[in-house]
């Protein structure tokens, strides 16, 4: 009830920040390679939320980014798709060669 009448850019930024932090913690703690990839997706979505909030004419009638925010958000979505394809290929290659998806066991490059 406190929120009613007070939705502003800040609340969207708060949601974006929460998604970002959840994704970052997910990337740091998951041992499954695919769990780490899911954390990356959450982080990119949190960043996208900020672009949309700053570009929204509903939330900021004056001084909004306008279409620029939405265009950058589109580029982020496309690049996230490309990143997921490459990371998944690497994950499958790692699984074929090592028979595991545990990132803790990917330490062959240790000096």
């Amino acid at each position, binding site marked *: 009830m406190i929120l009613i009448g007070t939705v502003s850019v800040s609340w969207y930024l708060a949601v974006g920040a929460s998604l970002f932090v*959840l994704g970052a913690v997910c990337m740091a703690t998951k041992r499954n390679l695919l769990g780490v990839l899911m954390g990356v997706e959450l982080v990119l979505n949190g960043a996208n*939320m900020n672009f949309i909030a700053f570009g929204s004419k509903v939330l900021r009638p004056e001084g909004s980014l306008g279409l620029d925010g939405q265009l950058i958000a589109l580029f982020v979505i496309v690049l996230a798709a490309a990143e997921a394809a490459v990371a998944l290929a690497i994950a499958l290659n790692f699984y074929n060669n090592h028979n595991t998806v545990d990132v803790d066991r990917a330490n062959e490059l240790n000096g």
Partner: protein
Amino acid sequence: MNLLAVAWEYWHQSFFILFAACAIGFGFGVLLSKNVVRMAFYLVLSLGSTAGLFFLAGAEFVGAMQLMIYVGGTLVLLIFGVMLTAQKDFINMDTHTQDWILATIVGGSLLMVLLFAAFGAEDWSKPQDLTDAKIESTKEATPLGLALTGIRVDTLGDSGDAVKQGKSGYLMPFIIVSVHLLVVLIGAAYMARTKKLSRATDDKSSRAKLMLFKMEQETEQLEEETYVVTHRGQSALNRTDSQDE
């Protein structure tokens, strides 16, 4: 009933609370779930709620693209990855306790900093009067597509230098992203292909060759035996014939 009437009047806020709670709640589900298949499902729901927030902020085209590319493309790819690697040892993987403690401390402090920044600027936290907010069709797809080809129809009114020199379009990033996608997909297909000379398939093929060799030897032996048997039978028959005479 009273609550419903209030929610109807403040529909923007109500939907914001609903979608934000879903996005963050299922985000927590992704973080806390140990089962990787459930994590993928929670991620689908979280990203879908994020698309709802995009719709709410007036970015309909980006919200639709989020649903189509992210939920329909990228996550299907991820789920295929989960299915291809979901051996019984890797479905549930525990995180070490010290990792949890460290990640909670670092993530909590990062969240504090970000929230402080989000609510710190006065311009951003100024509430808009969204009571009786109306749904308007913004017709954004055409300006977005034209901006990708370098023409900004939405900023024709303000004739800044950047618009005049044609610098505000997004043609160059669009081309770079297209080539990047092409290279990435070829590279991914090259890396994820099945190799013909890997050790496992080599073992299998050598075992198959060995089996073929044994079978050939056995057939040769069998042929020899049948030859011997028929020969003996024939000679025996010949012998009886000669005895009869």
